[in-house]
């Protein structure tokens, strides 16, 4: 239309500059701080095998947290993830009793996860129900089925080859779970930050109406996100069941809140619309380091959850306090 010499630049600040000032950088500093503090607090901390063990504190939860991050960015939530683990684990246990082998067990775990995710997704996207209500409901429902099937019993007798998913090492101290965690982190980082799908997730989380008016198939995207969260719960169920070697209906109790904590600590807005996978990765490391460090110091579990809670509030409140203080 007009060919003035006025030029609108693509960006004012470089992406690198943005990154240095970001939440993720702050969180990384916190992680390093905790690492240093831990290595002073306990002589057993800086040991390759101990550190490797520590990764099991977060790998399974983090796998779900990546999918949950996308779901929360889109403005929805899934509180049934830990119950999906219970149901998937129970199904695998039942399959073992019927003589199903390792490949079959994996399929059962993934399949139950997908089905549960689809169930949540249909209720939210087809019936238009709020996801927090739906998944509080399915949280009770899925674990309830587990309890009916198992009562106070447990399934055992998983095949030797199956336990590799939870106990196997790929190389030296690098566990299979840790490698899987890294691969899944990479996949989700690419999905969220480098694809059309990821862009749609951000658009929906910022303004679902606006996204729909821009021709985004909002309900379809949300349904896929519920499927992914269910699928990742299935993956976590396989790893956790393989690691424990048994299934009880109380498996992974309370994980849903730890996973949501991990996502929020990673800088994902609980209101939707913003957040990164890198942030969730660092948050997973922070939570793992704190739990492990306190474990080495023989701090009881209940105190650990107090520390995690305080950490969450502290890390979230700090930047706000900082900006209030600077504004004076």
């Amino acid at each position, binding site marked *: 239309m007009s060919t003035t010499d006025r030029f609108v630049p693509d960006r004012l600040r470089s992406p690198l500059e943005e990154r240095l000032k970001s939440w993720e950088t702050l969180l990384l500093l916190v992680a390093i701080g905790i690492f240093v503090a831990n290595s002073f607090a306990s002589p057993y901390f800086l040991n390759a095998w101990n550190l490797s063990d520590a990764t099991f504190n977060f790998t399974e939860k983090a796998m779900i947290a990546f999918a949950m991050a996308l779901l929360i960015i889109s403005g929805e939530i899934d509180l049934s993830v830990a119950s999906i683990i219970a149901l998937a684990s129970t199904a695998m246990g039942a399959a073992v009793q019927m003589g199903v082998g390792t490949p079959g067990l994996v399929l059962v775990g993934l399949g139950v996860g997908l089905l549960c995710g689809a169930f949540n997704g249909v209720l939210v996207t087809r019936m238009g129900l709020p996801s927090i209500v739906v998944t509080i409901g399915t949280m009770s429902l899925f674990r309830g089925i587990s309890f009916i099937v198992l009562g106070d019993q447990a399934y055992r007798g998983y095949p030797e080859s199956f336990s590799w998913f939870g106990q196997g090492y790929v190389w030296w101290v690098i566990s299979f779970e840790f490698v899987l965690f890294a691969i899944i982190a990479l996949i989700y980082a690419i999905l969220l930050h480098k694809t059309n799908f990821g862009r749609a997730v951000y658009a929906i989380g910022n303004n679902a109406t606006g996204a729909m008016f*821009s021709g*985004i198939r909002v309900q379809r995207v949300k349904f896929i996100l519920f499927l992914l969260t269910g699928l990742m719960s299935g993956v976590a169920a396989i790893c956790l069941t393989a690691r424990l070697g048994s299934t009880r209906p109380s498996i992974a109790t309370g994980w849903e809140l730890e996973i949501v904590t991990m996502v929020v600590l990673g800088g994902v807005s609980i209101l939707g619309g913003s957040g990164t996978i890198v942030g969730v990765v660092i948050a997973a490391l922070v939570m793992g380091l704190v739990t492990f460090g306190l474990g080495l110091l023989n701090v009881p579990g209940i105190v650990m959850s107090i520390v995690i809670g305080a950490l969450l509030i502290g890390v979230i409140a700090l930047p706000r306090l900082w900006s209030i203080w600077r504004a004076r």
Partner: protein
Amino acid sequence: MLNQTDMATISDGLVEDVAILALERITKTFPGVKALSDVSLRLIPGKVTALIGENGAGKSTVVKILTGIYQPDGGSLRVDGQPTRFPVPQAASRSGVTAIHQETVLFDELSVAENIFLGHAPRGAFGLIDLKQMAEKAREILDSIGAKIDPEHKLKDLGIANKHLVAIARALSIDARVVIMDEPTAALSHKEIEELFELVEKLKAQGKAILFISHKFDEIFRIADNYTVFRDGQLIGDGSIADVSEPELVKMMVGRDVSQIFPERTSNPGDTVLKVSGYSHPTEFEDIGFTLRKGEILGFYGLVGAGRSEFMQALFGITRPSAGTVEIDATPVHIKSPADAVDHGIVYVPEDRGKQGAILDMPIFQNVTLPSLGRISSRGFLKLAEEFKLARDYTERLDLRAASLDTPVGNLSGGNQQKVVIAKWLATQPKVIILDEPTKGVDIGSKAAVHEFMAELAAQGLAVIMVSSEIPEVLGMSDRVIVMREGRMVAELTEGDLQPETLVRHAAGI
């Protein structure tokens, strides 16, 4: 507070001429726009004054000054002849000025009495709300307007008409002397409008001054005693309704030279792109049918609530029609979602830019490319360089002014936000573009740019549908105009019939 008799004493018996509330030579400027310039308005006890003007004439600015929401830049405000200021809305309500808006905020879960007295409930012991007194007072007010509503019922149990009466009762609960009614009949049925008029007569008899804002001339002639006409923020005329005819009022309201501001264009329509037949919706519109050709600008005119936007949103796949067909390039298509519409080349620039048109927290470039992600990616993976190129191409065509392309759209002015929304759709290379009130809330400079651009798009062969409530815009831009009233097409006007008076007459059903 003064009553009628006191006022007559103050003004030494000149009861007839004393306005309870008067604006004198008021001026109000907003950045880039002179909303009001040197306007006066007098509200007389026991009389209904009709305020007439097109959208954008300055009516709502006057209402906001009268209710203390805006402060005038110049001129004076008089209550009972005494100069006053309303620095805050509470000052206006202390002086007995109250407004009934089209969409007064009420609370479904509260009782009728609580809704009426929210914020100024009668207090009893310990400063707690005196529920008994509140219910009694609410009943008194409801009785005074002839509403048979139990003040203890929850609001959600009432029908629309009764909710409206509660809104009126709330307005009267502050001992109102001046009642402003801003398009009060827009959402009402015929019977409810009759009831409202009875109520207005009652308020008149009680000596209240009423400012009645409406687009509907039959209502104005039915209920008003005096009139005041605004156009472009200026006072065009006022007087007694008995001394004026309807054509004279219409002329005062719309009469201006419209040809100068709009781009000259010679329309040269090509093949038919879009054919809509029998499009109907259970509640919003019925039997809409028309054809649209390449390079044509088709205007849709009507009053607020005539069903124009509702029809456009159905055409764009937001809502589903109950009957009707759409053909694009002579091929029938089924549009079930906006994504389908975009695939078929129909795009929609909505009226509500902040909620529907743009994603305000996201950067400009991401807004522009959102519907075209397939074109800037390969196998689902985004190519950032191509994304920026696409965004730059289309924002440059629209002469967008912004600090950078990664600025959030919410930081831009209304006109530039609109340019982002239009750029977003042009990037999809559509066949039909629907613009819903394209210059609403857009400053005068950008308005001309948007008009010029529309003309250019049509010249390039795009088929344009423009929904507008601004008569000059409709007349200045359209090749053809469809007028809608109450969900139906009532007229299709071409070149020769395009007169302001004709439009208003069809739209209002006179």
